[in-house]
């Protein structure tokens, strides 16, 4: 059975930690990091990378456009 697996790359230094991507993720992949970036923001990251399907919801709703999304089909 074909399965879809995804991954996101967050531009940490440009992320403002607004958290809007967190509820947008249907598989609860994203959380805010305990660490902060150069501006002092807790940036978003993939806390549960296995759950990512590459649906792009997080990137679409990110006000700062800091999320890039990748997806592969695995079998």
């Amino acid at each position, binding site marked *: 059975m074909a399965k879809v*697996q*995804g*991954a996101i*790359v967050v531009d940490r230094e*440009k992320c*403002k*930690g*607004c*958290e*809007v991507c*967190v*509820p*947008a993720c249907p598989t609860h992949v994203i959380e805010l990091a305990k660490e902060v970036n150069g501006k002092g*923001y807790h940036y978003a990251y*993939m806390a549960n*990378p296995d759950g990512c399907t*590459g649906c*792009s*919801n997080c*990137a*679409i*709703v*990110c*006000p*700062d*456009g*800091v*999320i*890039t*999304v*990748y*997806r*592969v089909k*695995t079998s």
Partner: protein
Amino acid sequence: MDVKEIIKDENLVYKKTSLMTSNVLSYCPGCGHGTAHRIIMETLDEMGLQSQTIGVAPVGCSVLAYDFMNIDMIQAAHGRAPAVATGVKRTRPDKFVFTYQGDGDLAAIGTAETIHACNRGENITIVFINNGIYGMTGGQMAPTTLEGMKTATSPYGRNLRSMGNPLKITELIAQLPGTYYVSRQAVHTPSAVRKAKKAIRLAFEIQKENKGLSFVEIVSNCNSGWKLPPVKANQWMVDNMFPFYPLGDIKVDGQLVNAQ
């Protein structure tokens, strides 16, 4: 599969359009302006219109929109963007012209320019960001501030008797024969963003066909002005702004679709 194996160019499904510059947005965390900017630029990118589009930035939070939109842009005086856009479109009818304006700019100081550009049916697109507050100057009352809503200049809440009513400018301009497409959208969830982008796409398609003015309102948040964290602000918007400013198309193909 390891994440590193997934993150490869051939697996790319979404990245920020090159029509957005690499400048860090000057907006507060979670502000809808960034998303609104991006879907306009994505639309122009997808339609191949970068070299044919001239944008007009307002006065307000998005005064620096030209720092982020990678197209030729004009910064207009407060409220005058529709007049500036008229000047561009009348002399350059082959170009795509849009204004990007907030509620103070479009519905207070620029009401006359808005209404007359709409009434003349200028072949331009107006994108109207309504967050019910003056963000840039520090959260003062806007023409679209809701009844009872607290702002820096309505600290006890908007009093309709003394401060007037919130203005549904979008319903107002939808009545004018010059407007061909009028819609109200939001950008707080993925599905809302997708719908809003469709509306913007339609707006530019209409401009391409010279059918008249296309107007897309985006009801948005102002976390700093509303004094709420972004996710809570979005919920407040759903609970309070949407009942008064309901989402959806108001006028399609020159016909009112929703008796408001």
